[in-house]
């Protein structure tokens, strides 16, 4: 077919871009951003309702909005964007044609129909069951059906990614091993298969239950299998956003991985150990032994966390090595001070890295400690943790990548460069704030998914401490800031795609400050004896110190509650 042979040559990178692949990338990315917009607005409404002084929405609306918010951002925004990343990491990076683009469109339509169906179900009011939809609390059948269709569509996209890798290898569009970014995307795709399979195993029976064909679904089993999908999908996000970090560092700074072996092995750790992940969502459940909980919550002695900690040195290390190669060698941090902080792709990358590691990673491991979980389960600490990982981490990284995708794939210059420059800071600090203050409120016992912490409609009374209310207020303020950051992103990205100056096919300077030629020696490949990244060592040392201290502080908190066994 003629279509499959149509390529353009990217004037900036020299890559052969398969036009049908590009069309799919654009479609998925655009729809992703639409769901980000919708989900983001809903998130703001949630924060303004949980801010007791504002208490914006009434109870019924709050619970549906909260359900829709979680699903629209955590599933639809992120996964549509990840499908675009998969197509990019396979077809574009490998200069290959995409496998069966027509099937990609079917997958896209299934995902879109599914996503709309779920939103309709939630809007209709009978499916305010939260993103987790725990049985036996029921939702309408089309709620579950929409999720199933979405999952099938995503699985198709994942299969097309695998198919494209096979084609690229077969047609020899590249030499040697796949690049690291594609390797990271492959990690995400492999995990996606397990994730979607788990989702199907639990959602199909639950769908049948909602129709009355199955009489009962065991509530503990539901959680176990559902979280096999639920947490694994977060590991897809981590693999994808780490791959994105490497990609941005490469594009903006010409950074090379310090060690392909170390970075790739770290990705492999994700695949090998993530399947144990349901456990840390079930530490406070009855009917499961502590042995199982301890082994699985640690992903077998924290071997998947090890993967992240490795990237935590490899990514900034690669950036530092690249910068030192350019001559920024004064002291430990000149490379960081003189880095392109005005480039939103770079600042987004760095903020995402720091916030994900310090706020998200540390809080996640602490939260997932079997006994410490007792003082955190279902408190607002949990959303505090995951907004740091998925929003400050993944979403901000994806936003940063978009500033590169718009010029390269959509062939448009960015409009409002001043707005773009500040956007990652406004969003990053806003989201960092909401995470921090939700964690603070949760430490004081404030419940999650709760409309009214003054209990004005309850027959008994209870007062959370005053500081908890302060936390909720601060959460609201920073949510406004995050929403502003989100709005800035939408404005720049949508505005650029529609109205940005067309870049045409003539090679033009890259949108970033001129990246050095990639061939410039930036640290030899095969790094024995040639890595020198003192700034990164210091940052990693600070991270580790914070981790250890915070970890032990929480054991101290636990030791003060009622003895229980």
């Amino acid at each position, binding site marked *: 077919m003629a279509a499959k042979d149509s390529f353009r040559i990217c004037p900036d990178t020299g890559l052969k871009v398969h036009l049908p692949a590009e069309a799919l990338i654009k479609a998925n990315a655009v729809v992703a951003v639409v769901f980000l917009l919708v989900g983001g607005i809903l998130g703001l409404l949630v924060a303004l309702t949980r801010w007791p002084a504002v208490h914006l929405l009434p109870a*019924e609306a709050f619970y549906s909005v909260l359900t829709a918010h979680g699903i629209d951002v955590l599933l639809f925004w992120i996964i549509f964007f990840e499908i675009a990343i998969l197509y990019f990491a396979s077809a574009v990076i490998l200069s290959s044609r995409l496998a069966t683009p027509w099937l990609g469109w079917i997958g896209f339509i299934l995902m879109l129909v599914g996503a709309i169906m779920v939103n309709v179900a939630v809007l209709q009011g009978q499916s*305010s069951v*939260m993103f987790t939809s725990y049985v*036996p*609390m029921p939702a309408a059948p089309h709620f579950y059906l929409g999720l199933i269709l979405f999952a099938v569509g995503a699985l198709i996209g994942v299969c097309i990614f695998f198919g494209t890798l096979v084609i690229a290898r077969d047609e020899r569009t590249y030499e040697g*091993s*796949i*690049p690291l970014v594609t390797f990271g995307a492959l990690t995400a795709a492999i995990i996606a298969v397990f994730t979607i399979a788990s989702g199907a195993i639990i959602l199909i029976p639950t769908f049948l239950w909602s129709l009355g064909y199955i009489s009962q679904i065991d509530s*503990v089993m539901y959680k176990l299998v559902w979280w096999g999908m639920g947490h694994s999908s977060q590991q897809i996000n981590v693999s994808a956003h780490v791959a994105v970090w490497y*990609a941005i560092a*490469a594009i903006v700074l010409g950074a*090379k*991985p310090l*060690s392909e*072996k*170390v970075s*790739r092995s770290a990705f492999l750790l994700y695949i090998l150990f993530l399947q144990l992940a349901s456990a840390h969502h079930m530490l406070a459940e*009855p*009917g499961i032994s*502590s042995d199982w909980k*301890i082994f699985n*919550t640690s992903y077998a*002695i*924290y071997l998947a966390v*090890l993967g992240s900690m*490795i990237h935590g*040195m490899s990514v900034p290390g690669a950036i530092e090595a690249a910068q030192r190669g350019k001559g920024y060698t004064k002291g430990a941090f000149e490379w960081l001070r003189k880095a392109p902080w005005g480039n939103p792709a770079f600042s987004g990358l760095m903020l995402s890295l720091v916030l994900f590691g310090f706020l998200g990673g540390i809080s996640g*491991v602490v939260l997932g400690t*079997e*006994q410490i979980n*007792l*003082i*955190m*389960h*279902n*408190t607002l600490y949990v959303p505090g943790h995951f907004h740091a990982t998925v929003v400050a981490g993944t979403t901000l990284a994806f936003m940063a990548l978009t500033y590169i995708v718009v010029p390269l794939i959509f062939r448009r210059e960015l409009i409002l460069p001043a707005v773009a420059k500040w956007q990652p800071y406004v969003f990053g600090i806003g989201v960092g704030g909401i995470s921090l203050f939700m964690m603070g409120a949760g430490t004081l016992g404030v*419940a999650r*998914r*709760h*409309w009214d912490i003054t*209990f004005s409609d*309850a*027959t*008994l*009374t*209870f007062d*959370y401490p005053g500081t908890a209310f302060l936390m909720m207020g601060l959460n609201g303020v920073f949510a406004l800031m995050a929403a502003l950051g989100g709005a800035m992103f939408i404005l720049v990205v949508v505005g650029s795609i529609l109205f940005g100056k067309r870049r045409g096919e003539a090679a033009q300077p890259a949108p970033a400050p001129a990246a050095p030629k*990639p061939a410039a020696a930036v640290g030899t*490949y*095969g*790094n*024995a004896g040639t*890595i020198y990244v003192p700034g990164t060592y210091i940052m990693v040392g600070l991270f580790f110190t914070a981790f*250890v201290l915070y970890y032990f502080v929480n*054991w101290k908190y636990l*030791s003060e509650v*009622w*003895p*229980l*066994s």
Partner: protein
Amino acid sequence: MALTPPKDRLWWKEPLHTSEIVWITVAFLWGVVMFSAMIYWHIEGKQNLSNEAYRIDPEVFAARAEEMTDQYTVREEGELGIPVVHPPPGSDIYIVARLWEWWPILELEKNQSYRLHLSSMDWQHGFSLQPTNINVQVHPNYELVLTIAPNEAGTFSIVCNEYCGIGHHTMLGRIYVVE
């Protein structure tokens, strides 16, 4: 670089730099420490979630809760006249979770231990004891049994922190601890 194939096809044969080996080792050992900490706490720590649980019919559980209540009620409270139950130390005590209340109210003695049984009549609920901040999940058809020993006197509230429908935020229980 990350967007191009590795220069050396056999990337797994790359030697590791000392700093990488050091960090990987430190991170791995830290993982071992954290893993061991959980095991250690089961041996030496005083706050662990019990592994004792049973499958149970909601009606059976409710009947046991009512039996305890009939035997040990000392007064009633609140607009709905919820019984306040003062069971003997060391005994089996019951709290029922249902849309949308925790029933009954318990009055316990400081530094005495009790076997607390938790189950739900209908949907999942979150037993969140405040301000001491103990949080466990309560399922229908499962009975969790944990031994608790209140270490301070006062009035404690049970907030529901598992979303359970429109009345979720009205679901509030109470435990009194007396000297």
